């Protein structure tokens, strides 16, 4: 038995339908919405602002602080307990590390940029959606960035290399691997690489190659979201 046809009939390198918008939360300094299939992420960015507790202040540069949270009703029926969990803390941390290589906070010593992520609906790939949305929101907030970060999961389902796995594929009853990847746009540097499951060395190389073109598609959506917000303002 091989996985020749994807559960939602996508091509192997096809991503779920994506949708993005910048500036969805007027009270925030920058914000974004990003959707990939049934996974939706809202991100609000506040700052640079004064950092408390004070002992965390760094006199050389500003701090990036991410806060990832799935909403209680967001999953597939199981209620997710609000508040932080081991998993949410880990994802918050990998988000910070995925975004930091492009963000330049040296102009804002002792300050903090807060990134809040809420996921009202989830169907696998939440950390990727969160990172892609956060990159839009940070750009919208006017934070100095050397490049954009785009994120998508790649992987292998029963021997077939696929991009942007859905929850059905992640839990497919066979050997599956799910590899969330985040990349910079210009240099294609990997800023996030995690894996769940099993994959052969050859397939991993192939999957990471597929991630390059997959993140490029995410980048196009991010760019369009940012440009349309401000060109509408320019035309209105």
């Amino acid at each position, binding site marked *: 038995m091989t996985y020749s046809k994807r559960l939602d009939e996508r091509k192997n390198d096809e991503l779920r339908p994506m949708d993005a918008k910048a500036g969805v939360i007027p009270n925030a*300094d920058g914000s974004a919405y990003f959707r990939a299939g049934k996974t939706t992420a809202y991100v609000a960015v506040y700052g640079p602002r004064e950092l408390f507790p004070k002992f965390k202040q760094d006199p050389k540069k500003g701090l990036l602080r991410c806060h990832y949270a799935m909403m209680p009703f967001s999953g597939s029926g199981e209620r997710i307990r609000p508040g932080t969990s081991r998993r949410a803390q880990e994802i918050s941390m990998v988000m910070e590390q995925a975004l930091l290589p492009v963000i330049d906070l040296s102009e804002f010593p*002792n300050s903090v940029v807060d990134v809040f992520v809420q996921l009202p609906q989830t169907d696998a790939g939440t950390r990727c959606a969160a990172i892609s949305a956060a990159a839009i929101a940070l*750009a919208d907030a*006017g934070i100095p*960035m050397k490049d954009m970060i785009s994120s998508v999961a790649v992987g292998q389902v029963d021997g077939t290399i696929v991009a942007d796995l859905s929850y059905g594929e992640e839990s497919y009853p066979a050997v599956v691997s799910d590899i969330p990847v985040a990349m910079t746009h210009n240099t294609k540097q990997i800023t996030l690489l995690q894996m769940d499951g099993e994959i052969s060395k050859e397939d991993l190389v192939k999957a990471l190659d597929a991630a390059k073109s997959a993140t490029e598609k995410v980048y196009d959506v991010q760019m369009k979201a940012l440009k349309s917000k401000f060109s509408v303002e*320019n035309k209105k």
Partner: protein
Amino acid sequence: MSARHKLGGYRKMSELLKKEREIVIPGEILAQGMDFLPGENTYRENDNIYAKALGLVYVSGRVIKITSLSGPYVPMVGDRIIGKVIDITMTGWRIDTGTAYSGLLNVKDATTRFIKKGEDLSKIIAIGDYVIVMITQVTSQRLIDLAMREPGLKKITGGRIMKINSHKVPRIIGKQASMVNLLREKTGCEITVGQNGLVWVRGTPEGELKAEGAIKRIEERSHESGLTESMDAFLGGK
């Protein structure tokens, strides 16, 4: 030896890849080649100049810069800002500048009046008061020194404070202060626009409301051309 050799071999032609006033996002390549220089919000890596912020491209001569459309107010020496007093120290007042960094207003820069040793500073300016001040110094660590000893700089009494995006301040003021003068004339209000995006309006209750509505309207339509004329029509004849 040919001229080309003197220049260091075959040099790639420099090329500008973006149009003037085009919107770019972080990481976009603005120009190729060494003939252009990176200005504000841009950086060079190898042969290319990249965008470092979301904004509009401006080219002046060889320098490419980006005017950002959003982002925090960056304190600059000489800026007149409106701030709120958040604390009183031994030698002066701590002022919230609307950024991540607060400013210090020293007693000697605040008033010409003689202040006795041990005098209660809260009698002069209290916590919670708003002041119009000028930035006299900003350090690399973003410590801000303020002064209030020039005409127009004072403690604010009465009226109302509103907050706008600091990037829209030049539009509220207008060319040679045309917009803010129009607002003053049409609403009969005293208006002070701080570079940090805080605006103080004082006048009759109706006038204040009118001015507030007009300022919000300018902020929303800041990208329109001929805004002063359309605001003139909006504010009506009187």
